C-alpha cells in the first residue's frame, strides 16, 4: 500500500478503471499531453492513446454535450472541466440533458458520465478559479454530487462514480490536491455513493462538512466533544447518518466554502428542521463563505471559513 496525495489517488482510480473497462474514456481541455493543468491525468495519454484520452477544443458545453452522446451510445466518459468557475456554460447540458435523458426516454437511454472539476479557494489564481458551486447541482434531480476530502476516499468514490449508472459531478478541492498524503491501496476498492462518514464520534455537537472544509473542521474540533460528519455525497445526501447524529448531540454546525445564501448547508439545515427538529437543543448554525463575489487572492483567505469562525460557530450552538 502506497502513501499518496489526492492527485495521485485520482490518477490511479482513472488508470485502473480504464484498464478494467475499455468503455471508459477521458475528455477535456489539456487532459492529454499536458496531463491536465493539475496533472491529474498525467501519464494516461501514453498508456491509453488519443482515442481514449481526448484533448478537446476549448468549449465546456461541447465537452459535456459530447460526453452525453458518447454515454448514450454506450461509453463511460469521464469529462474534465478545468475549473468549477468554468462549468457554467455546461449547465444547460447538465440540467436539461444529462439529468433527464433516463427519465425522458423512460429508461431506454442513460448518461453514466462523470464530470470531474477542481473547486474551491486554493491556488492564488485570478477570478473564477476558486468557486464552490455544488449547491446548484444538488438542486437538479437526476444528478449526483460527490466531494471527496482525502486521497483514500477520492479514489474509492471516483471508482464508484465511474461505475454509477447516473451522471455524477465529482468535485476536487484544489487546496487538498497535494496537501494531504494518505495510504491508498492499489487495485479495486470502492467507497459507496450516498453514504456519509463519521470522521470523529462525539456527543455534544454535530459538525457537518465536506471536501475542502473537512481539514479545517478537524482542526477546529480539537478538544471539543464533537461528532464530525464528512458528507462525501451531497446529492443524494445521507440523511440517516445526519439525523442519527443530531439525535445524539442536539446541536448542529454546518460548514461550507460556498456563499451562505442558498448554499447546500441550507438544504441540510432545512432537512433537519423538518425531520429531526425535535432533537434540537438550539439553532442550527451555518459557517460559510460570505454572500459576496469571491475576491481575488489577496482576500480569499478571509472569504473562506477559518478555523476560528468554525470554532465560534461551535461555541454559539454550545450555548444551548
Amino acid at each position, binding site marked *: 500500500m502506497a502513501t499518496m496525495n489526492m492527485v495521485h489517488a485520482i490518477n490511479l482510480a482513472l488508470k485502473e478503471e480504464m484498464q478494467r473497462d475499455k468503455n471508459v474514456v477521458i475528455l477535456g481541455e489539456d487532459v492529454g499531453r499536458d496531463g491536465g493543468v493539475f496533472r491529474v491525468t498525467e501519464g494516461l495519454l501514453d498508456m491509453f492513446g488519443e*482515442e481514449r484520452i481526448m484533448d478537446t477544443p476549448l468549449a465546456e458545453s461541447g465537452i459535456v*454535450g*459530447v460526453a452525453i*452522446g458518447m454515454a448514450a*451510445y454506450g461509453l463511460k466518459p469521464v469529462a474534465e472541466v478545468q475549473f468549477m468557475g468554468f462549468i457554467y456554460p455546461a449547465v444547460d447540458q447538465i440540467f436539461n*440533458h444529462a439529468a433527464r*435523458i433516463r427519465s*425522458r426516454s423512460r429508461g431506454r*437511454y442513460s448518461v453514466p458520465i462523470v464530470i470531474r472539476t477542481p473547486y474551491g479557494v486554493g491556488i492564488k489564481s485570478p477570478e473564477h478559479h476558486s468557486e464552490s458551486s455544488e449547491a446548484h447541482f444538488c438542486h437538479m434531480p*437526476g444528478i449526483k454530487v460527490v466531494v471527496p476530502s482525502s486521497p483514500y476516499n477520492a479514489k474509492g468514490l471516483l471508482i464508484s462514480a465511474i461505475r454509477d449508472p447516473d451522471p455524477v459531478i465529482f468535485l476536487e478541492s484544489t487546496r487538498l490536491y497535494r496537501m494531504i498524503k494518505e495510504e491508498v491501496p492499489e487495485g479495486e476498492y470502492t467507497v459507496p455513493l450516498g453514504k456519509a462518514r463519521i470522521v470523529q464520534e462525539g456527543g455534544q455537537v454535530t459538525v457537518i462538512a465536506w471536501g475542502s472544509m473537512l481539514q479545517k473542521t478537524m482542526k477546529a474540533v480539537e478538544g471539543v466533544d464533537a461528532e464530525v460528519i464528512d458528507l462525501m455525497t451531497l446529492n443524494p445526501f445521507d440523511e440517516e447518518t445526519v439525523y442519527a447524529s443530531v439525535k445524539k448531540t442536539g446541536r448542529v454546525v454546518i460548514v461550507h466554502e460556498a456563499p451562505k445564501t442558498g448554499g447546500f448547508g441550507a438544504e441540510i439545515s432545512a432537512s433537519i428542521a423538518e425531520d429531526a427538529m425535535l432533537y434540537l437543543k438550539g439553532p442550527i448554525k451555518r459557517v460559510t463563505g460570505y454572500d459576496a463575489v469571491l475576491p481575488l487572492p489577496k482576500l480569499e483567505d478571509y472569504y473562506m471559513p477559518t478555523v476560528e469562525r468554525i470554532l465560534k460557530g461551535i461555541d454559539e450552538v454550545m450555548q444551548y
Partner: protein
Amino acid sequence: MPETTIESCNVKRLEILSETGDADESMMPPLSDSQIRELYETLVRMRTFDHRALNLQREGRIGTYASILGQEASQLGTVYALEKTDWVFPSFRENGALIGRGYEMYMILQYWGGDERGIKIPEGLNIFPISIPVGTHILHAVGAAIAAKYKGDKAATLAYFGDGGTSEGDFHEGMNFAGVFKAPVVFICQNNQWAISVPRAKQTAAKTIAQKAFAYGFEGVQVDGNDIFAVYKATKAAVDKARGGGGPTLIECHTYRMSDHTTADDASRYRTKDEVEAWKSKDPILRLKLYMEKKGLWNEEYGKQVETDATAMVDEAVKKAEAVERPKPADMLTYTYKELTPRQVKQMRDF
C-alpha cells in the same frame, strides 16, 4: 506578397426535381420504381398524420403540436438514406423523420399528448428522444458519432435542427468538435425560413446556412429541401462519406414551414399570406406526384388508394394512442435515477 488569398470556398446548391415534376436524369440517384412509390406513400402518410395531429390538438385531445407541413421531403429524404445502424437525433419538428424511420405513429401522438412513454424508443430502433431545447442535441449526435468511431461501428449519426438552431452556441461547438474529431455525423439543417416569428435574414447575416461548415473545415451544401431526390442524394453521399471515415457534412435543406410554428402560434401576426402562397407551388409531394405521373407511376386510382391507406393507418394510430392508459403519478419519480433515492422513496408515499 502583401495581400494573398490563403483559402477559399464555394457553396453549392443541389436541385434535381423541378416544380413541374421534371428530373435531371443525369443527377438522379439510383431509386427503383418501387422505392419511389414507397417514398410517395410515406410522404402522404406523413402529411395525413400531420393534418390529423393538428385536428386532435384543436379538439383538445393532444397538447401543443409542431406541424411538418411543407418539410416532408426534407425529413423523409434524409432518413431514407440511412442504414439501420445509423442514428437519428431529432428536434421537436421531426415527426416526419420519425415516421420515415419506422417509429410508431401512435407513440408520437402519445408524446404530444403529454406522456413521456411515447418517446421510450423501442430497442433496435436507433433514434434518440426528441430534444426540445434548440440546438442542444447536436452535441449528442457528435458524441455518439465519436463513440461509434471508437467502437469501430459502421454507423453515422444524423442531427436535425432548424435555421434558428444554427444561432445557438451548441451548434457551433458541435460543428467544431465534429470537424476536429472527423466524426461520422451529418448535420441536417431544415432551413424553413422562420424561427417562430424571426425570419431567416434576421437569424444570421450569412447568405446561406450551408457556408457555415467552412468555418469548421468541412463541406456544407444547400439542397432544395422540397426536392426529395436532391435531399436523398446529398444525404446518401454524406452518410456514406461519414461511415467511410470522411468526416462530417452539413446539409442545408432549403424549405418552408407552411404552417404556424406550433399550435400555440399564429403566423399571420408576422408574415404575409403572399409569402406562404408563393411556396405552395413548390410543394414536395405535388412535385413527386407530377414526376411519377410522367413516369407512369401515378394515376388517380393509385393516388386515392394511397390516401385511403394513409388515413386508415392514422386512424388506427389515434385509436391506439387513446387506448393507452394514463401514466401513474408515481411514474414521474421513477427513472430520475437508476434507483430511487431514500428521499424519493418517501415522496412516493404521496401517491
